[in-house]
């Protein structure tokens, strides 16, 4: 029973890491850059949704849509302010710059939203639960993996079936050839960052009812999600999602067996070990060297 409940929790958290990591994936795939402060964007999603819904009293769907749109806009802003100027001059300063922007937004939220962690008002998703293998599982806990896998699936469909999705993938595979097809590479990168912000927002809104909403809630999630993205090889939506699930289940299993004090030590040691043995990640492919 301990194991079953650990699995359920692990899958829920894991798909949340996966969602955040999908955000790393889309930008890395299209532009070889990431928003290192992805955790802050996730926090923004939760905070905005809380503010619109609980504080301003908007209907929940409207609050969610508005929060997600703003997260996507924030993604675009990050790309314009902290990524593009550095990429243009061939510097990897974007890494530090996105971290700096994360610090700024975390603190800005601290002063506007308040220092107090807040709790999302419960919905039926939290109050209702089902019994699975003798363990009570809240609907919200099931919703997270469903949305996570669903979005990974949708992302795959978008890439495989739509004109614009194929165009974004083309940018990854061959930027020059993509431009020859009339694809605006700059716009594709912007879109990728918007999508990345959107995913982070979804993750934030999904985890908020199970967790607390505060300006610092995203930091550790962001780092773990980055570990997940790297472990997944930042190569494909499914690789990233599966790495997320594995990481979540691993965490939950360690917690269930040894207590959560060792969870981070074990998990992060495994990250180092995995990368030492497979530098390209679990599901990544080694790039071909050229002279």
């Amino acid at each position, binding site marked *: 029973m301990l194991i079953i409940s650990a699995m359920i929790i692990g899958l829920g958290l894991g798909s949340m890491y996966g969602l955040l990591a999908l955000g790393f994936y889309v930008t890395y795939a299209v532009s070889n850059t990431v928003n290192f402060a992805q955790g802050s964007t996730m926090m923004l999603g939760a905070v905005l949704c809380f503010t619109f819904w609980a504080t301003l009293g908007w209907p929940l769907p409207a609050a969610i849509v508005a929060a997600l749109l703003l997260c996507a806009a924030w993604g675009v802003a990050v790309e314009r302010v902290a990524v593009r100027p550095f990429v243009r001059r061939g510097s990897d300063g974007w890494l530090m710059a996105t971290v700096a922007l994360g610090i700024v937004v975390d603190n800005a939220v601290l002063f506007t939203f308040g220092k107090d962690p807040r709790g999302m008002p419960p919905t039926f998703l939290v109050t209702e639960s089902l019994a699975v293998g003798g363990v009570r599982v809240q609907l919200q806990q099931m919703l997270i993996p469903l949305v996570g896998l669903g979005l990974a699936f949708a992302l795959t469909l978008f890439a495989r079936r739509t004109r614009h999705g194929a165009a974004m993938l083309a940018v990854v595979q061959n930027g020059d050839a993509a431009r020859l097809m009339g694809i605006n590479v700059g716009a594709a990168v912007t879109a990728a960052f918007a999508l990345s912000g959107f995913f982070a927002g979804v993750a934030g809104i999904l985890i908020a009812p199970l967790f607390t909403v505060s300006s610092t809630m995203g930091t550790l999630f962001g780092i773990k999600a980055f570990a997940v993205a790297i472990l997944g090889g930042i190569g494909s939506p499914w690789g990233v999602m599966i790495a997320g699930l594995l990481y979540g289940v691993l965490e939950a299993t360690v917690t269930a067996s040894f207590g959560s004090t060792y969870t981070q030590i074990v998990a992060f040691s495994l990250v*180092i070990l995995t990368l030492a043995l497979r530098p390209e990640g679990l599901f990544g492919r080694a790039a071909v060297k050229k*002279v």
Partner: protein
Amino acid sequence: MSARNLLIGAALIGLLVAAILNANGYHLFVLSLVGLTAIVGVGLNILVGLSGQISLGHMGFYAIGAYTVAILTAGYGWSFWLALPAAGFFAGAAGGLLSIPALRVRGPYLAMITIAFAFVVEQSAAEMEGLTGGWNGIMGIAPPSLFGASFRQRGIALLVLTLAVLAVVFYARFSGGAWGKALRALRDSEIAAQSIGLNPVWLRCVAFALSAVFAGVAGGVFAAMSGFISPESFPFFESILFLLVVVIGGADTVLGPLVGAAIVVLLPEALSSLAEYRLLFVGLLLLVVLRLAPRGIVGGLSSLVTRLIGGKAKGTPVSGDGAAPAFLRSSGEAAPLVVDGLSIAFGGVKAVQDLSFEAAPGAVTSIIGPNGAGKTTALNLIAGYYRPTAGSVRLGGVDLTGRASHEVARAGIGRTYQTTQLFEHMSVVDNLLIAMRRGRLSLAEFAGAAETSRRRARAEALLAFVGYQGPLAVEAGSLAHIDKRLVEIARTLALEPQVLLFDEPAAGLGEEDTARVGRLLKRLAGLGRCVILIEHDMPLVMGISDRILVLDAGQKICDGAPETVREDPAVLKAYLGEADLAGRARDGAGSTGAGRRILDVSGLCAAYGASDVLRDVGLSVAEGELVAVLGANGAGKSTLMRALSGLHRPVRGRVLFDGEAIEALPAHEVARRGLVLVPEGRQVFPELTVIQNVRLGAYGRMPPDLDAEVERIIARFPRLQERRGQRAGLMSGGEQQMLAIARGLASRPKVLLLDEPSLGLAPALIQELYAILAELRDGGVTILLVDQMAEMALGVADRAYVLGSGAVVESGTAAELRRSDALQKAYLGGEAATAS
């Protein structure tokens, strides 16, 4: 260090000592923190500034140092003076260990490993309660004492100052010495660093460990200074502050970490009255510095000063008579390079097959062949960059098969690269000095023994010998193209190699410079070296080679003296294609210049960096025409295509397309107007299916009924029809080429640009391809075709232009050009070969 610098340094130290003697407890603590942070920064600078790696985990090393001192002094009664070196040692050992996984990864991956490391250290400190006191930490760490007197705040501040000065002096000497040069070389170009014998694995490991030692020592002093440490003293996320110290101050500058530490520590203190808004300011400041001063404050100031004062102090220009230095004259008996049965395959494609030859000392051996023949691959096999699947490489009695490239270099094989691989941020003379080491660096040289004047003299003599006449101290990256070539050759010579491999040394050079390089190569052979040359410039190859090998599709097809090779029918066929394979000519009179001029190019110039690739090119294409652009490799054909399609920007001159000037438009805008390039090397999207590739072709110019359009196009290519659901990356080269053309057609282009469609295809496939081109032509598609296979191209073309050295040297109808000898001249140089 100059006397002036010493004076400034002494004054600064005096100022700080005075400050320490007058400071109150808080100021002492803050000053000490600045010092400790600076020490960590100096160490991190070895990693970030010199070796170009990143670490977000130095807090971990700092913590290891602090806990070492705390545990050894408080727990085991060690003296602080013994515990401090131990702190450095343990941190360094941890750094060495961490470098093992860190060596194999870059960028974000490396950042993740180091973050994870710092996180694990922090958490472990909390959990290893017996050793570290767990969350409660270790209290009552005694301050150090000397001769019975215990250090108080002031003493510790002086100790920190001493250590910080030592750290800076060490860094100055280390970075100026052989190790610093080696690490910078590795940072600027790992490939080239290997080819001068540097072992990247070992170097990175040393950089990591050394950098960790600094952090460990600083942490050790921190423990003694604060008297109390706990896991919360070392939050892993604050590692970023150490990185900030280096970035803000200026990576790869001696004083950068000092300035950075002063800012990172003092600024929050100065803002302490802002209390809670402090982090907000720090974040904003970081953004501003990153945007406005990418080289950090010290780096930015020094380049500003350089600009204000003007370009003084670039060092003296090279002097010397250009005679061959004595040490270059062959010593002892020279051995030949023997290549036997060398083969390698990439994903089923046999890039080099059973290649055997012997390159004699004192001779120039050239390897030529059409594009994609496997020439550079052969070079990479010899130089140890690839591991052959079969065969062997021997130099004299030494078997070098499958050895790492730095070992091959140390064994006496030097090389240059198609695109020069200088250590761009190092001075010209440093490029040579580090190469002279042949990869040998001893740990005793950490403190950076200054380069001997003998070595400098040698470097200067070498530069004079290759004909470089610029200044010695100028950054290599700022040199003109020809100087880069010359310095790269001189750097290779600094290795004193037996064998010299030159990969297209004349690429991008003008006629005069090419001749200079040719003479140099000849002289080197005259000195008893074994010179191996890959080159497309036929006059050069024919002029200086003693022997020529011709490769085609990975196989040697001819081997002999220049005269023999030039006459060989197989060689001509490989270069020009076979006339009997040529595509079908247009029926009837054709449409030469009949239609409206849709593409009109005049005065087009393009350059890569400092070297001009296109010079004043003019050409035009009328609607319905098929026009070919011919010329040898390196004549500028592909650049022309890239310039027309918008991939190469900026260009000068005028490109009128359908009445509109497009020379300034970006590629996607050009494509959307209907000027569509099918690029060289196919460049299909490997992960997408055939149909997806074709549909994507229409992205910028959607037809009203995409599905029907795609079906119509696919129907033209039976091979694609069969494989419509297959991923493009899994198809053969010929199929990929068909797909690339189909993809180009999907946008219903007004003009289709085709760049080297026959490259690397088997003859049967080429024929099929050209049949399709003829069909398209007859169907009214306007085409501008570039192909090395001149005979083939002329077979289908209405008109053609011949490019030579970036300019149009001949133009006319296909028939006219067939009769002229300009073509063969352009391809094989010298007198025209007798047509077969």
